[in-house]
């Protein structure tokens, strides 16, 4: 091992010793990001360390402007940090070229957005098929798999409906199926329930939780809604570009104060 040790020591410190043998599917090390908006400098992230274990359901909580989305974009390989590094499945995303990054997005990461972002003109089936087609799967195989996934999210009877013909909750369930299409290592859900009412939102979270175990994926979700935290194994509180605390599921209910050692 080389200089990585120093870089990691900070991040590793937050995890207990038994985690040593667990592979982290996401690791963000000292991630900083600064935006320049019309002469004004905005520090979106000020050195964030975060490790997510395989199979975990981690929620990132924070008010808007806390750097939540920025952190998400970094982890999703949609944006690159100014400083620090982000590893997805132990691969440094900053070292990837455009083709590898596209492959990573296609195969390793499933995205779920607040605004669903289905291709509006395509059917539910086509939307779920799309990432598999981009991955090079044959149309027939992709369709079979897409039908299976849509049945899993309870939309077996809506296969050919266009997204405009679906309700918000149904659209988000299509998005869940689409995110799972290429058996990703991680699903990134940025405010997945932000545009849904409570009941529909909970339904989507429940489906996510159920499919997480079935498909062995890790789920990282951003939210500012306390009601959506029930499924989380850990909750990371982000404020002003820094992690202020990290709570485990057991600590959520009784609300013991800070346990995180970040800064």
């Amino acid at each position, binding site marked *: *091992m080389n200089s*990585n040790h120093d*870089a*990691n020591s900070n991040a590793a410190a937050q995890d207990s010793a038994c985690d*040593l*043998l*667990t*592979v*982290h*599917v996401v690791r963000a090390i000292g991630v900083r990001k600064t935006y320049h908006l019309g002469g004004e400098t905005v520090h979106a992230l000020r050195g964030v360390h975060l490790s997510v274990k*395989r*199979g975990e359901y981690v929620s990132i909580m924070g008010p808007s402007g806390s750097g939540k989305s920025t952190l998400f*974009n970094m982890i*999703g390989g*949609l*944006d690159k940090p100014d400083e620090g*590094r982000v*590893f997805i*499945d*132990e*691969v*440094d995303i900053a*070292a*990837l*070229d*455009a*083709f*590898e990054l*596209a*492959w*990573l*997005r*296609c*195969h390793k*990461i499933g*995205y779920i*957005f607040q*605004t669903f*972002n*289905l*291709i*509006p*003109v*395509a059917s539910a089936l086509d939307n779920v098929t*799309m*990432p598999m*087609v*981009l*991955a*090079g799967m044959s*149309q027939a195989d992709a369709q079979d798999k897409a039908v299976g996934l849509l049945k899993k999210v309870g939309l077996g009877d809506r296969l050919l409906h266009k997204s405009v013909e679906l309700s918000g909750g149904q659209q988000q369930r299509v998005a869940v199926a*689409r995110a799972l299409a*290429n*058996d990703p*290592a991680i699903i990134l859900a940025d405010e997945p329930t932000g545009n849904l009412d409570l009941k529909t939102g909970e339904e989507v979270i429940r489906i996510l939780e159920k499919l997480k175990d079935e498909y*062995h*994926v*890790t789920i990282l979700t951003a939210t500012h809604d306390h009601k959506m935290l029930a499924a989380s194994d850990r909750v990371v509180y982000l404020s002003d570009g820094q992690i202020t605390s990290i709570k485990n599921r057991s600590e959520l209910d009784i609300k013991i104060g800070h346990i995180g050692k970040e800064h």
Partner: protein
Amino acid sequence: MNDQQPETRNRSAGSGSPEAFGNGSPPPLILRGGPSPEAIQKQIRLPFRKAVQIAWRNIRVRLARSLLVTSGIILALAFLAYILCSDALARHLAANGPAALIETLRREGTLATLNDADTRTQTWWLVGLALLVSFVGILNAMLMSVTERFSEIGTMKCLGALDSLIVELFLLETTFQGVVGTTIGIGIGLVLAFAEGLILYGSAAWRVVPLGAIAQLVGICALVGIGLTIAGALYPAWRAAKMQPVDAMRTEI
């Protein structure tokens, strides 16, 4: 790729990837619940046939906009084809037509205008303007189309679409419109030119048709039409492809 150690997730080239385990310890595969690890690969290009299908679907659902672009191309190309064809007809008749007709043409001054530099320059200016208007129309429509689809493009990129696919889709879309518009435009232009010839020169216009010259002008028009549409779509397509997915997602319209 890392052939010797297929179980590691590190890229062979990614020297900086930290390894959480000592060199001697076995890779903790047992502890991994997920699918078997694989090394990072390069994203493949989508088969052309598939890209055509997607582009065709995009056109179908935005038919009104497509027709607008297409009609612009039709107008410009019809004008170009008409000018070229009527010129070719007149020249051909002047050289090969019946003597009586040539005499009439000379008396009416048609032959003189045929070779008059000023008239010709004027005509070409008009043709140029028509093409320019059509070009701007395509550019505008395609830019709007890109703006309208910001989040769709961003989503496609998040799902693993390469920049080249985005360019391909936009170019294919305009090429469809270009081919249809050019074909119809040339057809209309030729019909108009022949109809005019019939009125001006009578049935002689039909009897001595300069096939070679017409084939040539059809070829020129086809090149101009397709070139025009692709030129109009290049910048919008490039803009769409260069857009960062994160920006594309952020935009709310």
